[in-house]
């Protein structure tokens, strides 16, 4: 019995971890900046491309293969440092206080540009470099084989949830962010440099997206269209959890991960439907998501 | 005495433990111009919100012509002939003044026409006449967000009048209106009410306005009615003078 269930569970958790990485940055950016970044999925795939390129480079030069783990992390930092401040300052900042339609469209324009940029830089062939996964090998317990890389993914996701919570609750930066989230004008009036907070928060969101992409490449490779697919999945998860809710995104990732894996095992033809069907059901019942709350209506 | 148009019975409302209405009953009869006065935060706007279905009372009921409307929506109550003007004007601010008026007129009849234009000659003339009456003749084609606050207030009232209500609820009609414009506004309002035989209830802070125009005054304090009667009776009540008007 457990031989059948535990691998299923591990698959679900690993899948949930990857989905969580895609969604958590989106939800974080939304909670601080109040902007739904439609280009978020592209940043995920850019992270993946950079990581895959670095890993391929490491393999081709026959450098120490364990460097590829550093490469995964480095690519996320690299993408965040370049794109985070650049995008926030040039485009996203312009949309603050504007309608959702404007925010969605501006970032959709960015999404289109980033998709082409990726195609121009990385080409249209798919990348696959699974050195990090092979290096970690497998673990056999009770006759069942597990991929250690999956366990690493789950661990990383937990690490991110805990770190973000610690960051928000127990650091100065976290308190500043909370102040900005609670009342932007008030935060400004007491002298908090909101522009700096916005750049940091947005870059952190980009970092998480790129990290997700980087961590995903060893398991699934990367190909054109990944950004668009990831985007809508991240949307679904963020919406289920409640936009702006970090733990909500974690729980939603679990729901979607389990739903997906169950669908793959039970009705394989419907695996792609599962996340959106879950999103639809949750949003129709609780439009603000599982963990979101309603904002006051105006009069 | 005839049956009241609007009657509230035993209203209880509390927000976070603060009582906005504590067993209040009021009624308003045909042809009255009833003023409600009282300190800020005493629950006057809450009363209007309850009477128009925007919030539900904790207990008690609201009757319109003897029918219970406590649980109807603002929309359903509006369709029964109760219109409201707001303390903060509620306008279609991106639209022109005349379009605000014509949409209000169309709401009464002809909304479901998707073929004929909103701007028919007859509807425009009717809207124009109301704007002339209320003193907005020169603002017809302005975008309503560009109006000065006093004129936004007038437009809000004109929109409510365009519904041809039987009962009009006004929330501080003269607030935001300059002292010079107050009496002209009230004169225009009174003549519109008389001409169209509209009964009205108004919440007001300007005691001069109340003394001059109200046919009856209710003094609301801490969720209760403290005094009630003709303006001269109420204003001579020592308790009212002390607590509400602020002169001993």
């Amino acid at each position, binding site marked *: 019995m457990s031989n059948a269930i535990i691998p299923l569970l591990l698959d679900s958790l690993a899948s949930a971890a990857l989905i969580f990485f895609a969604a958590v940055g989106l939800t974080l950016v939304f909670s601080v900046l109040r902007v739904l970044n439609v280009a978020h999925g592209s940043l995920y795939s850019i992270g993946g491309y950079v990581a895959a390129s670095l890993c391929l480079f490491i393999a081709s030069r026959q450098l120490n293969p364990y460097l590829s783990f550093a490469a995964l992390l480095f690519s996320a930092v690299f993408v965040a440092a370049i794109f985070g401040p650049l995008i926030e300052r040039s485009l996203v900042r312009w949309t603050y206080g504007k*309608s959702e339609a404007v925010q*969605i469209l501006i970032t959709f*324009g960015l999404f*289109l540009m980033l998709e082409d940029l990726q195609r*121009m830089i990385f080409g249209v062939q798919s990348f696959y470099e699974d050195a990090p996964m092979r290096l970690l090998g497998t673990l056999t317990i009770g006759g069942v084989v597990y991929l250690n890389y999956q366990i690493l993914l789950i661990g990383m996701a937990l690490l991110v949830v805990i770190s973000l919570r610690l960051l928000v609750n127990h650091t100065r930066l976290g308190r500043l962010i909370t102040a900005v989230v609670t009342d932007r004008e008030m935060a400004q009036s007491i002298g908090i440099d909101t522009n700096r907070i916005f750049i940091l928060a947005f870059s952190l969101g980009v970092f998480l997206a790129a990290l997700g992409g980087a961590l995903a490449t060893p398991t699934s490779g990367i190909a054109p269209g990944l950004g668009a697919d990831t985007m809508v999945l991240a949307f679904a998860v963020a919406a289920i959890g409640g936009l702006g809710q970090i733990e909500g995104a974690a729980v939603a990732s679990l729901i979607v991960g389990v739903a997906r894996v169950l669908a793959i095992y039970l009705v394989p033809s419907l695996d792609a439907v599962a996340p959106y069907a879950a999103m639809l059901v949750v949003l129709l019942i609780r439009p603000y998501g599982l963990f979101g709350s309603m904002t006051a209506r105006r009069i | 005495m005839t049956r009241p148009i609007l009657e509230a019975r035993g209203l209880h409302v509390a927000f976070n433990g603060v009582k906005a209405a504590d067993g209040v009953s009021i009624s308003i009869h045909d042809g009255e111009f009833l003023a409600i006065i009282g300190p800020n935060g005493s629950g006057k706007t809450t009363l209007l919100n309850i009477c128009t279905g925007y919030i539900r009372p904790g207990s008690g009921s609201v009757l319109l012509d003897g029918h219970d409307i406590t649980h109807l929506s603002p*929309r359903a109550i509006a369709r029964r002939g109760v219109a409201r003007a707001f303390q903060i004007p*509620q306008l279609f601010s991106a639209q022109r003044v005349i379009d605000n008026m014509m*949409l209000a007129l169309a709401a009464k009849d002809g909304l479901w026409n998707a073929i004929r234009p909103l701007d028919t000659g007859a509807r425009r003339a009717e809207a124009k006449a109301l704007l002339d009456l209320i003193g907005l003749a020169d603002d017809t084609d302005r975008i309503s967000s560009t109006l000065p606050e006093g004129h936004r207030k007038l437009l809000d009232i004109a929109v409510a009048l365009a519904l041809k209500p039987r009962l009009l609820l006004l929330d501080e009609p003269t607030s935001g209106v300059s002292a010079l414009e107050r009496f002209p506004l009230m004169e225009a309002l009174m003549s519109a009410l008389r001409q169209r035989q509209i009964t009205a209830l108004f919440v007001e802070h300007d005691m001069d306005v109340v003394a001059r125009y109200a046919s009856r005054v209710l003094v609301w304090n801490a969720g209760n009615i403290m005094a009630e009667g003709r303006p001269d009776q109420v204003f001579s009540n020592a308790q009212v003078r002390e607590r509400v008007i602020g002169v001993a």
Partner: protein
Amino acid sequence: MRTIVAASAVLILAVLPVAAPWLQFVLTLAIAKGFAALGVAVLLRAGLISIGHAMFFAASAYGVAFLARAGINDLGLLLILSVLAAALLGAIAGLFLVRYRAIFFAMLNLAVSMVFYALCAKLYSVTGGTDGMTVPVPAVFGVVLGEPTFKSVLFYISLALMLLVGLAIQRYLNSPLGHALAAVHSNEIRLEYLGIPVWAVLLVAYVVSAALAGLGGAIAGFAIGRVVPDFAFWTASGHLVLIAVLGGIGGVPGAFIGALFLELLHSVAVTVTDAWNLIVGLTLIVVIMFLPQGFYGLFSRKEASSL
């Protein structure tokens, strides 16, 4: 004056394919997308942004394919039935969706359309999966045509529909119901207090917008000869919003101007560069930042509504 401009524009469109036959397909597709973008623009007037309207575009095209498979072979009938199907789907979805606003409306539309997309892509036995379904050449008023002739007929029918439907939508937007729709963006509380049921105003608009997207989808299906799940993918929905905003949501011509501009630019651009999305994305950003009323705002003197 404006009538003259509009008439000459349509006239130019009508003769263009005679001069340059390759343009016929481009223009037919542009009109098709123009219809769908007009549907999106109708909702944008109420401040509602749908990132899911490609679903109705695709649903109608699939509708044509299914009906043709079932033996219906008349262009008029296929158009009417498939638009009705899209409208019906719009009525069902709209019943649930018009309660929501802002980001929630956008996301729910996205969710519904992605369920639709995933079903189309996965139900191989019904929809042909990612291969899609063919849309055969139908008869026109009982006359069986060869494919090139049909494509010409389709273009001129689309052009005529653009005029007729465009005028009808213009009337709708000028009617009390259309004004009430724009008023939803301004002040819902006042609408309620006028006794106007906001949900019904929005539901009518939603059905109209779904029908428009459906009309576009049916035309696109005929023009391309095939319908695939990608018709309904979220990026396609995003493109419809993009077209509506590029053209300007202030008036009916905006959606078609946006679509024509984009399709023509596309057919020119692909001959020089493959960075098409880069150009479109940049154009979109520039237009939103510097031309909030879209291209149509350049032509129309009356104040056009913007986002």
